[in-house]
């Protein structure tokens, strides 16, 4: 079994979108609409502690995970590798991909609002708009399909 973990330096939404494209839960061949992305986020962006790793799904014997690591991204990946060794797991079965976040102001505002009660719907709309404008970012990550992507 292979394990692919998509992570970002924010709240994990960018990582979630890249993982979703990988699993074909979002289209990778055509640009989805803002409404499609917002609806997808509505179904998946649960409020959980920062750093939490989520399993999004499984495809052809591979498990796909996503998480938001804030400023701990580089450190967390190094720590994962060391603990995989501690547990005598096969390192070559694990792939970690850093997903950049869109630079749009709407994205940052969306991430900020995501954990504010009553603002989540607005947050999803901001995030979806920014994501669609810079959708190529996520597709580029999926093209880096080798160890340590």
């Amino acid at each position: 079994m292979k394990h692919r973990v998509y992570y970002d330096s924010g709240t994990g939404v960018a990582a979630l979108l890249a993982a979703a494209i990988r699993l074909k839960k979002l289209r990778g061949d055509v640009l989805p609409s803002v409404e499609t992305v917002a609806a997808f986020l509505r179904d998946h962006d649960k409020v959980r502690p920062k750093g939490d790793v989520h399993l999004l799904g499984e495809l052809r014997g591979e498990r796909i995970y996503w998480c938001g690591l804030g400023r701990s991204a580089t450190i967390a990946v190094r720590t994962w590798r060391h603990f995989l060794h501690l547990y005598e797991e096969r390192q070559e079965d694990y792939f970690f991909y850093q997903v950049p976040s869109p630079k749009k102001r709407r994205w940052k505002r969306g991430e900020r609002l995501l954990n504010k009660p009553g603002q989540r719907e607005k947050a999803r709309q901001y995030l979806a708009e920014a994501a669609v404008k810079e959708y190529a970012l996520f597709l580029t990550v999926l093209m880096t399909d080798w160890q340590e992507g």
Partner: protein
Amino acid sequence: MHVIYYCYGSAHSSVASAAIHLGRLPSDRVPTQEEVLRLTDFDQVESWQIGTLFFKGHDEFDNPVYTLGLGPEQAVAKQALLSFLDRLGLDTGNLFLNHALPHINRYAKAGGALSRRYGLVKWGRPLSAYGIRRDYFKLVEFVQGVKVEESRRMMHKHGG
């Protein structure tokens, strides 16, 4: 069971705690400045190594003891580690993580930052050693608490 002391950079509080745990620093008296500075791993870890699990030795229960730096957002990095292992179905019950950073004073923290972050080793290293010594018994008390809990977990594990 894996006993892990963690802090910001795995250079001062976790290193001193592990040294007390393994008997490399005394528990009944304050060590001299030289004794602290003579620890081969004190104030040594570089920034790029943060996140590395450093093996330090086996304790009297034959459990391996480690130090680990988790950077500026230790709670997030810890959550990422434990939830990752959980999602993989690996048993995290044998990890005994202990946060060493709250058990040192501001002298030790300032000295550590001067040395590791700003490269002022000449001033930072002695200051951090002074800080460790100044409130040394707080650190000893912390480690003794860890050992009590470790012993309790061992008894529980073996049905004692």
